[in-house]
């Protein structure tokens, strides 16, 4: 049984604002029967430009219904600019939190809000942004990237919890991991520890990072990496197997190995292939 908060249960049992506004100003529909949940949101603006009424229809589990109910309560009285800033986190917080496997319900609420505002502003029927990564649930790279960035996700499992991607056949797991790595690599890191590493400490850490983190990832694609030497902050490595002949080996080096070493050992490191 899911560990729902009292507030989530209360909103599921007594959902607010169920229905459909016939003369709506904005409408947003997300999800599908196949996906297992769907939400149709309508709102009506008042003379003051604030959301005077909002209603929803939801197909889905208890947390999907509660999230929809929470969303309509949150946005009532807001201007569209304010409503546009409502995040999935806000919806989850309003309910006192959601089980992590159910976070996608709050994301569905946020997405419906955005679509409804876009409809009102005449930006409707925008093409799906990005490329589909998860075929099972029709999730794009942009959606995944956004969920990872906004919610500080670090694993495929978390991405599945938030946007469902990867929750079906699992064929897209590598692509999702790649997106996570890219986002993490670009995220500003916490300030470095003040004390510098001694040479021997640095070499040991580089070696351990290569063995533990980098090699297994390259091995999966039939490649391998060997540490040749460390000179100051220059890390010299030799690539073998498919990595060596792959035209993307430069990309692999720059974007993957260096990012990982910078993240886990020192910001100053530069990787060179020898």
């Amino acid at each position, binding site marked *: 049984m899911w560990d729902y908060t009292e507030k989530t249960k209360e909103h599921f049992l007594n959902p607010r604002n169920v229905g459909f506004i016939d003369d709506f100003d904005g409408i947003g529909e997300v999800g599908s029967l196949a996906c297992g949940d769907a939400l149709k949101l309508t709102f009506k603006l008042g003379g003051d430009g604030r959301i005077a009424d909002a209603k929803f229809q939801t197909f889905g*589990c208890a947390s999907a219904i509660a999230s929809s109910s929470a969303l309509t309560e949150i946005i009532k009285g807001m201007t569209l600019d304010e409503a546009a800033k409502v995040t999935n986190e806000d919806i989850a917080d309003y309910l006192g939190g959601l089980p992590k496997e159910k976070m996608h319900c709050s994301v569905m609420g946020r997405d419906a809000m955005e679509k409804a505002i876009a409809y009102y502003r005449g930006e409707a029927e925008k093409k799906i942004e990005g490329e589909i990564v998860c075929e099972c649930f029709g999730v794009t790279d942009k959606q995944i990237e956004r969920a990872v960035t906004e919610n500080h996700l670090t694993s495929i499992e978390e991405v599945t919890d938030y946007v469902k991607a990867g*929750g079906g056949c699992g064929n897209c797991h590598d692509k999702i991991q790649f997106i996570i790595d890219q986002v993490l690599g670009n995220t500003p890191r916490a300030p470095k520890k003040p004390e510098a590493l001694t040479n021997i400490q640095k070499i040991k850490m580089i070696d351990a990072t290569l063995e533990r983190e980098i090699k297994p990832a390259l091995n999966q694609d039939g490649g391998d990496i060997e540490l040749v030497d460390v000179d100051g902050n220059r890390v010299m490595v030799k690539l073998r197997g498919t990595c060596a002949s792959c035209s993307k080996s430069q990309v692999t080096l720059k974007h993957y190995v260096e990012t990982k070493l910078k993240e886990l050992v020192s910001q100053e490191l530069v990787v060179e292939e020898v």
Partner: protein
Amino acid sequence: MKAVYVDNNATTRVAPEVVEEMLPYFSELYGNPSSMHAFGGSVGTRLKEAREHVANLLGAQPEEILFTSCGTESDSTAIHAALQSHPEKRHIITTRVEHPAVKNLGEHLAKNGYRTTFVPVDRQGRLDLEFLYKNLSDDTAIVSVMWANNETGTIFPVEEIARKVRQRGIVFHTDAVQAVGKIPINMADSSIDMLSLSGHKLHAPKGIGVLYVRKGTKFAPFLMGGHQEGGRRAGTENTASIIGMGRAARLAMASMEDENTRVKALRDKLERELLKRVPASMINGDPENRLPNTTSIAFEYIEGEAILLLMDQYGICASSGSACTSGSLEPSHVLRAMGVPFTAAHGSIRFSLSIYNTEEEIDFIIEKMPPIVERLRQMSPFWRQGQIA
């Protein structure tokens, strides 16, 4: 609030007679049946009796009965035994609608040097037998087909399959966890080589399983160690549970008729009335060849977890094939294998009765379900669309 429990394919109430029989073995009669002294030896005598009771339920010989810790252990033991006894064979046949105990093991083996064939089913949940027979080969070590499906209650023709499989000299195993105690089973007149059952599905406690191994079937133990169970399953016997299992086996034989008359009639009433009172509802699975206690009903355009939680408000306990209840994002593999459309799969509810259910309880469910379904449909964006379409 009193629980109205119709989730007996998940687990059952331990029969009061079973509890009573077990209690002394948790307290004063704590001896080890392997001991040389009479204090332990007397427990051994009771285990022997329990083994005979289970053998009687299955129409088997006592020495063909092995006690394990659960249905899953029995399944794993059977499949590993066949693979180890025929190391030159690298192929397994099972079905797409098995319980995870067999399905996930089949998938695991497929990633570890074996070839696993999953036999498909049709829209009614019936096995494609031709596909199964076509895939039998000299490389096939074991065929494992469940006797009855836990989600739909569909009964498979395992006796017929076992005969064909035996003609090819291949081992046949059946996961009979949902069948034993509900329908008659007679191993004396059967080609089935191994059969798994689980205590807690027939009013014995959790933590006790049985594997039937036909005399003469090549075997290799899964758990190695002591000499217990004739060296075929090591580990000190779960004495209280084995004794409880023996009592439950006797009860199952005594209540078999009730199960197939009164319980079946209650199930039929529940099903008939719900289909009549709830529009856009249908039965999943083969309505003919079916366990007497099970019905899986799809309520279209709504989602199972929400239905279950509203039922829970009235203390009604059932299960759903929906994605949201399992923690995965896709609906049940059984319903998907049958090609149940998504409109129906997400809103499928399984009711599974037992001899403890009363007519009042069934009437209560019949009264409460239609408004629950209606309430959720009023919230669903697909309901009116679906009605128009």
